[in-house]
């Protein structure tokens, strides 16, 4: 029932807003302003490059911090504070609740990222170059960041269903780092020419979430275009993997005895 999840999602978003989470945008804005002003002094000729690199990296990092720190509390907080008791007495499936919490955080991340994107655009504008056609790749890079965040959030939510925020943070960070290095591990395995190691690293590569897929920041900075098929492929990847993780979370949560 979309209504149930939707209600939970909107409420989760409302909580984020009222908890003043969006204030992080202020820090981001200050950073972009500082960068825009100083970049002229530091590096001539590559102002655009630096602003885009910095901006996209910051969007990614801020988003990541938000996804993890808010994600690990999504379910945990409701159990600890027992707000879940009243909620689950309503005709709502536990998985609907999970999907709702997920959607709410995703919405928060989406709003946050969009506002940061505007900040980036403003900084670019200030630096003096009008928007080029190739800037479409910046939009794609931001979209890919969102896809990445969606996947990280799914993991955070999963861990939130059964472990404390501290452990969940460690686990989620662990998966994220492993996912970043997945390609490196795979390449390393190939270099060893040892079939056992190659096989293992290959298997790991396909099992781990490959966050490398989403990183087109360098391309965007250089104004190179990103192939369109990569866009829908990455979207599909996030959808499939995200669904997998959410399904796992639902399975774990459906059997949990609440305290």
């Amino acid at each position: 029932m979309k209504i149930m999840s939707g209600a939970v999602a909107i409420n989760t978003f409302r909580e984020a807003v009222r908890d003043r989470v969006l204030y992080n945008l202020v820090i981001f804005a200050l950073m972009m302003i500082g960068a825009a002003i100083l970049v002229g002094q530091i590096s001539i000729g590559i102002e655009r490059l630096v602003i885009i690199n910095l901006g996209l990296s910051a969007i990614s990092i801020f988003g990541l911090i938000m996804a993890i720190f808010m994600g690990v509390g999504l379910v945990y907080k409701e159990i600890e504070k027992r707000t879940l008791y009243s909620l689950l007495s309503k005709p709502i499936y536990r998985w609907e609740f999970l999907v709702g919490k997920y959607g709410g955080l995703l919405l928060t991340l989406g709003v946050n990222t969009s506002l940061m994107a505007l900040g980036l655009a403003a900084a670019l504008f200030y630096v003096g170059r009008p928007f080029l056609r190739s800037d479409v790749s910046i939009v794609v890079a931001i979209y890919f960041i969102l896809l990445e965040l969606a996947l990280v959030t799914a993991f955070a939510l999963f861990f939130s269903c059964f472990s404390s925020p501290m452990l969940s943070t460690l686990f989620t960070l662990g998966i994220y780092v492993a996912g970043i290095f997945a390609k490196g591990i795979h390449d390393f395995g190939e270099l060893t020419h040892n079939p056992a190691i190659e096989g293992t690293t290959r298997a790991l590569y396909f099992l781990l979430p490959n966050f490398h897929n989403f990183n087109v920041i360098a391309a965007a900075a250089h104004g190179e275009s990103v192939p369109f098929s990569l866009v829908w492929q990455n979207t599909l990847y996030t959808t499939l993997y995200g669904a997998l993780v959410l399904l796992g979370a639902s399975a774990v949560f459906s059997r949990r005895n609440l305290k």
Partner: protein
Amino acid sequence: MSGPKLTRTVSAAIIATPLLFAAIAVLQVRIDVKMRSATKEKEELLLRSGDALKKLSFGYDSLMADIYWTRAVQYYGERVGKKGANFELLAPLLDITTTLDPNLIVAYRFGSVFLSERGTGGLGRSDLAIELVNKGIAANPSEWRLYTDLGSLYYLRLKDYPNASAAYLAGSRIPGAPLWMKLIAARIAEKGGSIETSRAIWSELYETTKDPNLRKKALEEIQGLKAQEDESQLDELADEYYKRFGRFPSSTKEMRDAGLLSGIPVDPAGFPYVFGPDGKSHLSAQSSVEEPNP
């Protein structure tokens, strides 16, 4: 036993998990294809200053050094042997690595060989290699191996025998340095370039390093030198043949039948040597052995 054992959700999860993973794997393969064609192997090094990076490492210097070292090795591995390969980032990568961890000896040794190597095997900049090794010596004064690298750079690449001999000699004075360094120093000073000296130098590198890339390179060089030696011997015998029969041999078989050879000599890869129309012996075209670069 608590909890409904197999809720619908749990069953769905159990069934869907392997299916989803399979779909994801298939998708990943397609993504890899796309990404490979899109990124065009563009390696980037935005920050080339080792000192700046050191400051940004917040104390995790050696970890960062390891990361950059890994990058350097992968950078090399992706390009070695490929036509039109561009190794220009190898020098800054190694420079950053050694600034972050000045005691990473293998990085200096790696740079000494592959920064100076010409063609598709390296950057071809012996000056940068010498700079790197000197940096290593300054930070690791008791590491005699770096003196051998310096010496071999002068000897093999620059054919600068006085400096080569001096480097070996200086290194031989370090406590723990092996005796052969003195011997090599003397031999270079006396004879200049020779195949035995070159082979000794590469053999010592092969013995004293664990890095697979360096060992591979050393082995190739040693095999190439052996081939060179074999060929000069064959050429001498070919001259003998010419004196006897008025023409150069067309194959080593002929030389064996003439009693000049006791068998069919093969190169270190196992392929028989062949003769060109000019009467000089060469490696077989199928052989994996390569003659050493001049």
